[in-house]
């Protein structure tokens, strides 16, 4: 059984001008101990999808259809109290480095032990010892257990976030742009740390990013999202070496390579469509080189050698 199984998920934002279809009928699954990458432009719905895996939906957003199964159990109909118990304990999240992601008036130690004590009935001493171990796990000296967030650098704050997020040995980790905004050196350190964590704790993860190179390094499979829909989903190597969907091709083609012949950077003309009034059929059609009249109809999902592609023209 896959750890995470999303089917026909629809998440709309109810605005005065009509529902904005931020996530429109998507589906994917993540096997145990695997990492799925979720890439796409800003506003394509990847963060919304990721947050929904923990049922973190900010109003006016609403799940209007579909299911999200965690270990077989659908979390969409769950009551608040039930999902609260899953959060932190089974499913955890590390978000983009924000100045204020950590409470400035509590020590790091307190922020870790607080979570442990909430979900497990252990003594304070045990929680404290585990908190120290968590810090070590992410590469921070346990001497810093009583430090405050403002004493940490940006990279250290991210590590602290990871230490907090994994304190209760969750089964699933959501990584929402965890390296965005950090300089390359720190980025590398964070990626190394994440890899260690994943191995140590046998984590299953979803990794959201708009940075293709980072995703290439860390993920087993990748799903490409556009305007609330998944365009292509495949294993990482195949996707990068041979992208099938026109959008994937354009995306990967737009990325400059350090090696190989120098070539003209290709950007994708146009802009993403309105989510309130999206184009009928394939949402990428208006910007697609190969678009034809049949693209006004919703493309079926073609499966080719374990890869899934939503395009009329990709079937063999």
């Amino acid at each position, binding site marked *: 059984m896959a750890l995470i199984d999303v089917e026909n998920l629809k998440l709309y934002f109810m605005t005065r001008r009509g529902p904005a279809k931020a996530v429109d009928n998507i589906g994917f699954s993540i096997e145990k101990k695997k990492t799925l990458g979720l890439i796409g432009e800003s506003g394509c719905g990847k963060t919304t999808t990721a947050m929904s895996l923990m049922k973190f939906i900010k109003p006016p957003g609403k799940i209007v259809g579909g299911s999200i199964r965690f270990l077989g159990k659908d979390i969409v109909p769950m009551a608040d109290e039930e999902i*609260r118990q899953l959060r932190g304990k089974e499913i955890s*999240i590390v*978000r983009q480095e924000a100045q204020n992601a950590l*409470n400035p008036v509590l020590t790091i130690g307190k922020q870790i032990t607080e979570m442990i004590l*909430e979900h497990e009935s252990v003594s304070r001493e045990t929680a404290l010892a585990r908190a120290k171990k968590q810090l070590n796990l992410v590469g921070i000296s346990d001497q810093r257990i009583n430090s405050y967030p403002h004493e940490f650098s940006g990279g250290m704050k991210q590590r602290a976030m990871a230490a907090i997020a994994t304190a209760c040995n969750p089964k699933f980790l959501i990584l929402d742009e965890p390296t965005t905004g950090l300089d390359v050196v720190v980025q590398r350190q964070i990626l190394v740390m994440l890899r260690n964590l994943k191995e140590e704790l046998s984590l299953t993860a979803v990794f959201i990013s708009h940075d293709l190179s980072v995703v290439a390094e860390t993920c087993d499979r990748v799903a490409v999202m556009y305007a609330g829909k998944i365009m292509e989903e495949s294993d990482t190597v195949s996707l990068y070496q041979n992208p099938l969907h026109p959008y994937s091709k354009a995306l990967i083609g737009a990325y400059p390579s350090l090696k190989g012949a120098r070539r003209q950077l290709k950007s994708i003309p146009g802009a993403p469509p309105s989510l309130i009034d999206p184009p009928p059929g394939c949402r990428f059609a208006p910007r697609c080189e190969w678009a034809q009249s049949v693209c006004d109809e919703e493309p079926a999902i073609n499966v080719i050698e374990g890869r899934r592609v939503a395009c009329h023209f990709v079937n063999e």
Partner: protein
Amino acid sequence: MGLKRFFLRKVVAAALTIAVIVCANFFIFRMAPGDPVRMMFRDPRVSEGSLELMKQKFGLDKPLSGQFVAYVKNLAQGDLGISFSQQKPVLEVLAERIPNTLLLVVTALIIAVVLGVILGALAGWLSGTKLDTFILTASVAMYSIPTFALGIILLLVFAYLIPIFPLGGISTPASGYEGFELIRDVGWHMFLPAFSIVIWYIGEYVILTRSSMIEVMGQEYITTAQAKGLRKHTILKNHALRNAMLPVITITGVNLAFAAAGVIEAETVFAWPGVGRLAYDAVSQRDYPLLQGVFMLFAFAIVLANLVIDLIYGYIDPRIKVGE
């Protein structure tokens, strides 16, 4: 920066402010039209000889700079002049009245702050709901009504129309109450003036705490706390409230100036024998030395109270305690 340097900076700033207040006080009163001597000693019964002596003591026979020196010297020795309307040294008059004001103000402020913060935190936490709108509107109304106007209304309704409370003063005259009975009598007299002050203050604190709470709740670390699967009440206590309180503490210092206004107004309406009422008495008697003394007392008290609050804040906020 460390706590020590923070404290030092605040103490020095307070000392400087006091120095400037002393100077300003001197110059403001020299602006008054008329003979400064006659101004200070209005009582026509004072003989010329005594006037001459007073002139010398206060340096009024010397040029302005000399007067200033004499003024500072006298001040340092605690000599604030003589209140001719009270026939006593100003310092004595003030000293007599301070306890009464403190009683009134401290009681009112404690009640107002506690209630205001609780209601404000509630309103902020439940922002957007009907309860929140109700609390907010009520608070804006409470905060806008001038204290003296509210006092007069209360006086009319609850002391004249429906005589539940006394018409003024601090205790029933010549009653001979002692101990517990005295406390009850004073409390009964204190109710309406305290209520007038409390209403304004609650309004202010609700609005303040509410907006601080709303701002805190929009912060990233609240989302993080939710992602950790913490209970709502843990998030409220450890994450929301603790952070929302910080600006509230800071503003408390600034608000003390308004407490001064409230006290002056309430004491005047209810004839409560404190330093606020003294301001009214001094004005109606044109007793400038007394007025000067009252002003300086209020100004000093606020500077000192601000200093204490700044020091407390420095201790509570880890960003200052542990230094950035």
